[in-house]
């Protein structure tokens, strides 16, 4: 079978005056792949998404969308849909009118396609907005607007879907709805590029991620590889016997118990926070089971993707845990302890 990536970008550079928004960016997204785009504010994500939607062209480099080289603005082939910043919706029109207008402009007609998911009604049904189809968008919540923006993209039967913060303002049910739609599209062969600051969403949806920092790609590849490269992480451990578990953890090679201090989510006496690489965590679980300690919960305090993001973009401290989090004090104490140890050794 002939392989045609949905996106193939090589050495894309884009400047706005003196500001280099993208600096030699390479990106390849296969059909059927959900690809995450991550980066701090000003990293160039929106610029890159704009290029993918045809809103602008790079100053240099080569970009192919669905096999078509893109040399000028608004020249992306049919089958590319999505939104940047926020969905473009007209508040004085109803949800149905917004979609019908888009369908008409793109030459699809309101009843485009066949089957239950076809046309305006099908798109509204897919994102769960059938009940408010004839309400004006003016009264929609942020989450409803996001879902309507997704419906607008679905309407065009995309082969490449570009979404900027699609989960913004969504409640848990809405988020699951959107996730289901995206994974469904990917299963049908649509390539999806999602830019988001919500690492849990990206971790749940994306098979590959690209991390941008100051216009450059600092990582691109599978999420699993990223997690493996992220090194030591903090894990929250809940067991049937915290005291025994603490002892086992302290004796496990390569693992450190993070001291507990102050109030917070992890100040519960039954919760243990340990730091170490994945093999050490595996060893800990085996030892706990061997010691007859039941493991009730074991999860990273910070998602691997988020930790990697913070580490790779240089926006985090230490192990990449944000300063405002409740376990910050614990980490700081750990670092202080480590520093004291080093000073003592000297």
């Amino acid at each position, binding site marked *: 079978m002939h392989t045609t990536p949905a996106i193939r970008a090589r050495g894309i550079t884009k400047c706005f005056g003196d500001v280099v928004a993208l600096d030699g960016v390479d990106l390849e997204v296969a059909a059927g*792949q959900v690809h995450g785009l991550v980066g701090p504010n000003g990293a160039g994500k929106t610029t890159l998404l704009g290029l993918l939607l045809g809103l602008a062209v790079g100053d240099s480099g080569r970009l192919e969308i669905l096999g078509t080289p893109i040399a000028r603005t608004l020249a992306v082939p049919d089958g590319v849909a999505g939104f940047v910043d926020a969905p473009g919706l*007209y508040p004085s029109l109803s949800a149905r009118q917004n979609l019908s207008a888009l369908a008409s*402009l793109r030459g699809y007609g309101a009843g485009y396609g066949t089957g239950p998911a076809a046309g305006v009604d099908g798109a509204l049904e897919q994102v769960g907005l059938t009940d408010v189809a004839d309400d004006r968008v003016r009264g929609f919540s942020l989450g409803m607007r996001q879902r309507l923006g997704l419906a607008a993209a679905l309407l065009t039967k995309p082969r490449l879907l570009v979404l900027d913060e699609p989960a913004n303002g969504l409640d848990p049910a809405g988020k699951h709805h959107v996730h289901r739609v995206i994974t469904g599209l990917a299963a049908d062969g649509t390539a999806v590029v999602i830019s988001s600051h919500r690492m849990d969403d990206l971790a749940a949806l994306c098979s590959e991620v690209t991390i941008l920092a100051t216009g450059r790609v600092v990582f691109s590849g599978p999420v699993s590889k990223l997690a493996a490269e992220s090194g030591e992480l903090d894990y929250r451990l809940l067991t049937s016997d915290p005291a025994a578990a603490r002892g086992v953890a302290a004796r496990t090679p390569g693992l450190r118990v993070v001291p507990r201090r102050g109030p917070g989510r992890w100040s519960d006496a039954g919760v243990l926070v340990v730091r170490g690489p994945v093999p050490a965590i595996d060893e800990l679980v085996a030892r706990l089971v061997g010691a007859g300690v039941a493991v009730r919960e074991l999860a990273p305090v910070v998602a691997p993707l988020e930790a990697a993001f913070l580490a790779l973009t240089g926006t985090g401290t230490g192990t990449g845990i944000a300063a405002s989090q409740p376990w910050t004090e614990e980490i700081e104490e750990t670092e202080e302890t480590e520093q004291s140890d080093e000073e003592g050794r000297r």
Partner: protein
Amino acid sequence: MTATVAAPTKIHARPAPVLRGYRFELVKLLSQHRTRLLLAACWIVPAAFVAAVSLQNSLPADTVFGRWMHATGWAGSLVVLDFSCTWALPLLTALVAGDVFAAEDRLGTWRHLLVAVRSPRRIFVAKALASLTVLLILVVGLATSSVAGGLAAVGDRPLVGLDGHVLAPADAAATVLLAWACVLVPTLAFAAVGLLGSVALGRSPMGLLMPALLAFALRLAQLLPLPVAVRVALPSHAFLAWHGLFTSPAQAGPLLVGLAVCLAWAVAATALAYRLFLRRDFTDIAYDGSGRRVLVAGVLPLAGLVALTVAVVAAATPAGGSGIERVKLQDSLATAYAHLYRLQSRELNRPDVTEARLRATATCDKGGDRVVDEGPGNDWRCVVSWHLPGVAAVGTAIYQLDVTAGGRYVADGDGPKEVNGYFQVRTPTGDAPNPLWRLDGNVDLLARTQKG
């Protein structure tokens, strides 16, 4: 990860057809509360206003044709037209054309629209056509509603023109509709300025205000003692030049020049807006326009257009000075007096005397011997003389004239009560308005002065 699909089959990247974009823009405009309110106001308020005023004792005599609102249903529409030319039409262009591009900036929908339509050119054309369509619907509403209100309240009766001649109902209808059609052209020019402001200034409210500000500035300029070549070369002149349709023969010169100037403005402002729009960076979602860009790409070219049109008008027309001269005024007043004398004779059941046999003449003077008899002002004093067949004595009547810089004047009678000294005359059926007491006239600013 490796995923494969078949190579893309159909690739369609064609822009959306202009007609679809136009329809979408119309839907957007008509879905706005503001547009709906304007439509309701333009289609309902004029009828109510004309009907209400026509049934009152006091009439808006200061407004052209206002004193005839009791006499014919067509006068009310012209009163509404005069008011619209001063305030309503510039404001409507500001609210519709002045916001049609800026609305996308406010809503942050440019990217969405560009991706959907895929052609900034077509977006521009669709938006311009849609805003002009809405403006046309609004103007048609003003005309239709005001005519309907007048006809319903007063009836389809003859209309007295601005030189006193009587237009039969059919002629009145045609001329009134022609006058409304003529003001569509300056409306187009102001709409183009609105498009330019909307494109150039993005979310800034100054874009919305540009047509209204231009109308206000030009209104102020019209009050100044400008040379006639400058006056008729301004795009606001066509908002006044329709007055010339209501004389016989029609004063076509100023009207045609005004319409030509407005067409030039419409084309120039639209072209500037188009150029600015195509050069715009749509990736900047906080676009508020640029003062320098507006000055260089908007204001300076239009100022150049004013200079060009002034030069062309000055070279191509015989007019000089203010365009208001003693001889023109005398001819205009004598003609109006003769027509209205016949009207008064019919009211009073006197024997009809034709204008030719009446041989009415006027002698005018402005401000006494120390003032040059030229230009606008309320210090014109005229003596009208006329002859009656078989009567040796020459009849005379005095008028004080207030002449505006645009050429319109109001002559206030000051003579015998039976002729022009009182606002009413006693007819066989009761008291009736005296057509010679106060009369409206209009001087052709571009007419060649007939010496002697």
